[in-house]
């Protein structure tokens, strides 16, 4: 069944902040999967009067597909069993509809269905080892309804670190470009730069951005500079996507600020900032340092962040930052997966639960909200839970309510453990409430712009016809949890809050240019150390053209 060629979404209040439209009642016209300026009067109509019309949601950072995510699924059969997901009943009984299981790390088809059910139509998988890129693509092929890409892990890559050690900045850049294309990736991801390499080599971790990684010629600072510079020089649509050192440690805000200052003046995205905004000292004295961190962001337009909000309830911590997961396992005694990935990165997984009566979890919850509420420019700040690390993407509607509804937020604040909240701006009484327009910025317009996805996150002429239509409700969580209609590329996929169609999404990837000389050197390196043939490493051509057409 194909999408209707034309559709007029009539009479809704349109929130399209990228085009300066703030709740104006107007029609949105769609033709052949794109937004167009006008349609003939007799074009099919979808009556949206009284409803809220926004671009489809864009998730800038989630863990939804690939090797690590699949390890997490396999680790947690009890969570799967507790959340069965039946096959959706689609409009066309011949269209493939798949059952699955949910929990914090749902199966692929269920992931696509649930994202679309929330009105999200674009998702970036945040951490893929290039060695397992082929696996990630296969899972994304089985994740319908969302256009998706992934970030490729480079901050602990052995070949890259060798180039940095030798001062070969140009070759590092060419290597990053080659690797992005070989993996079919969208952007460069840096996780705990140098720290994972130390974990694998036996020195456990780094503690600051000037610690040596193997040799003093390589430090987290140098890795950050090399990859931020490479991303910017290659004019990638999204800058280096950075998970700082010392995630989750008391006192780590100083490391985060050191990292931001190290990259001052460079475009860079700092991810799940909440997990990196704690005061105190390593090992104790937990307190919020959200104010210090967000003040820096507020003063530096070249910086963007996503929050990585903690939501109370079950989560699965899953990250390339393997040394952190070891510490969490050692502290909690929960089951634990570690996979060291040859020459590239690591992987650690520990299931977790954030309890509102637990002091550190309550602090984390508060820090995230502080970052949101103290951020001056919503275009720099993206809504995320670092799914499934801070909580499931299914918690986004609840998070929207916390941002939009001060009375509700204050009510929730009363219930949490206050032991570590002294000094938190939240406790001081933050009055800010996000407007619908600001929510539209932090959930679609902003992330699309930061990702350089020019056809996403807005409803201007030429944009992809990814549209979400909500029924207004007093309770913002209820409103955002069940959009009335969702359109993906012009196809009505959710109608009356029921999933009715499940088309495949597109793959978002880049193919930057590079000096081919680097491949000769990489091939030599493969012959010496790798145990996959150089020729078998690239994923090969993808069905969709690269973003930006390079």
């Amino acid at each position, binding site marked *: 069944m194909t999408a209707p060629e034309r559709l007029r979404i009539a009479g809704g209040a349109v929130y399209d902040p990228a085009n300066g439209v703030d709740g104006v009642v107007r029609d949105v016209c769609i033709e052949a999967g794109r937004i167009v300026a006008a349609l003939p009067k007799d074009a099919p109509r979808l009556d949206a009067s009284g409803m809220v019309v926004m671009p489809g949601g864009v998730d800038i950072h989630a863990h939804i597909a690939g090797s690590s995510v699949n390890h997490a699924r396999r680790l947690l059969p009890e969570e799967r069993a507790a959340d069965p997901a039946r096959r959706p009943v689609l409009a066309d009984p*011949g269209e493939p509809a*798949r*059952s699955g299981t949910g929990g914090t790390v749902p199966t692929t*088809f269920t992931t696509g269905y649930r994202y679309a059910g929330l009105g999200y139509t674009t998702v970036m998988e945040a951490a893929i080892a290039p060695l397992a890129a*082929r696996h990630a693509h*296969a899972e994304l092929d089985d994740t319908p309804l969302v256009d998706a890409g992934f970030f490729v892990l480079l901050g602990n890559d052995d070949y890259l670190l060798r180039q940095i050690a030798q001062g070969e900045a140009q070759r590092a850049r060419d290597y990053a470009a080659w690797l992005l294309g070989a993996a079919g990736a969208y952007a460069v991801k840096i996780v705990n730069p140098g720290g994972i390499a130390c974990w694998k080599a036996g020195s456990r971790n780094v503690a600051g951005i000037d610690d040596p990684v193997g040799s003093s010629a390589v430090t987290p600072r140098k890795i950050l500079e090399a990859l931020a510079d490479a991303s910017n020089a290659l004019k990638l649509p999204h800058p280096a996507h950075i998970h700082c050192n010392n995630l989750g440690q008391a006192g780590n805000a100083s490391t985060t600020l050191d990292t931001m200052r190290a990259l001052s003046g460079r475009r860079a995205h700092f991810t799940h900032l909440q997990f990196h905004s704690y005061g105190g000292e390593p090992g104790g004295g937990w307190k919020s340092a959200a104010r210090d961190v967000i003040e820096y962001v507020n003063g530096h337009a070249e910086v963007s962040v996503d929050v990585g909000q903690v939501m109370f309830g079950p989560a699965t911590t899953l990250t390339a930052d393997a040394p952190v997961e070891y510490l969490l396992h050692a502290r909690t005694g929960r089951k634990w997966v570690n996979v*060291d*990935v040859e020459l590239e990165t690591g992987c650690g997984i520990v299931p977790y639960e954030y309890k509102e009566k637990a002091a550190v979890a309550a602090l984390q919850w508060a820090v995230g909200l502080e970052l949101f509420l103290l951020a001056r420019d919503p275009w720099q700040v993206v809504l995320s839970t670092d799914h499934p690390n801070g909580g499931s993407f299914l918690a986004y509607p609840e998070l929207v309510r916390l941002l939009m509804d001060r009375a509700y937020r204050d009510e929730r604040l009363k219930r949490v453990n206050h032991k570590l909240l002294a000094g938190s701006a939240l406790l001081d009484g933050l009055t800010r409430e996000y407007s619908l327009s600001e929510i539209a910025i932090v959930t679609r317009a902003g992330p699309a712009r930061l990702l350089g996805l020019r056809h996403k996150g807005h409803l201007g002429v030429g944009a992809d016809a990814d549209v979400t239509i909500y029924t207004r409700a007093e309770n913002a969580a209820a409103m955002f949890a069940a959009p009335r209609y969702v359109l993906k590329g012009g196809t009505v996929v959710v109608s009356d809050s029921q999933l009715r169609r499940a088309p495949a999404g597109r793959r978002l990837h880049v193919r930057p240019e590079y000096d081919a000389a680097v491949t000769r050197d990489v091939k030599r390196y493969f012959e010496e*150390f790798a145990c*996959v043939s150089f020729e078998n490493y690239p994923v090969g051509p993808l069905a969709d053209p690269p973003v930006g057409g390079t």
Partner: protein
Amino acid sequence: MNNVTCLGCGCACDDITVVVQGGTITEAGNACALGRTWFGDGKVPAEVRSNGRAVALEQAIGDAAKLLGAARRPLVYLAPDITSETQRAAVAIADRLGAVLDTPTSELADGILATQRRGRAGATLGEIRQRGDLVVFWGVDPALRYPRYTSRYAVEPVGVQAPAGRASRRVVAVDIGSCRGPENADERVSLAPTEELDALGAMRAAVGGRTTGDATWSRVEDLARRMAQGRYAVIVHDAEPGDLAPDADRAEALVALAQALNGPSRCALSSLRGGGNRSGADLVLTWQTGFPMAIDLAPGYPCYRPHQGAAVWLARREIDAALVVGSAARLPARVAQGLAAVAAVVIGPHASAAPFTPAIAVDTGVAGIHESGTAFRMDDVPLPLRAALPATASAMTVVRTLGERLAAR
């Protein structure tokens, strides 16, 4: 053709040079004996049979759709030697049918369940090569069933932290009864099968700085202490059923020991897995259903039945029709026996020569010889498969067509 991936065992060596002359494979360069046997000459039967008669492919697919579509309690079984693309298409059929779904991985359910209870400390094979300095082979010599494991991964090649290759590492063979470690190990420890679990317990205690005080275990305690003091220890064991009798407690103890060693040091447990893209089946089942094996889809969603599985369902006579995708010749014996009593559709290499008589048999090529796609190494690393020979029938195409036929019913 160069850089061909061999699925003769779970090592999935991807450096094979396949020479084809006159439509036959005349050489599989770099392959071990097991790999050369797996490639063979590339000749496979190309029969299509339904109820004892040779039929056109179209008719066989139609008959298969009829048989499976009418089944009350169908089983879909993923046998070895198919691509992950084919595995995905077969799981889609199981989902549509509300079938029970299984793979040979059920034969090692104890090990899977241990990792689901505890997690695991692991590494990809290449990382073991880069880092491993003390490699302990637990009742297994890979030379027998995983011939190039030692030459490609651990222990011979040079690595980033093993500049002299084999000489940079210490190799320990733990012999358990007649199941011996590598002959060229630097040291050996011999255990009677009845001693094995106590030895593992003593080792775990030693890692935690305790001792049993029993001289019987002083050698293994000493080994454990050295593992804890080294830089990167590796424990290699065979996860597939074999001479060493499967033991749920061993599976759990090995996982626990490897995890515990990551306190004082680093350690990875390397679980040897068989060929034919078995690991790929675990992964595909997991990403599509949430569980790696033994799944009941009859309720309309996946339910995990790890203590049952195909052999149990077949033995109970509750299965009235089966779809086997893959090499029927490589089925676990008890599954093959059970299938003999069931109306079965077999789509895969040598289907017409299955060890039981299928109602419908469609011979296809072998993934990695006649069919391109994706397969996974024993450590879950994905690799491309390059077909050196054309297939008379592609398992992927046949399974997809069958799925479409079932969807149209």
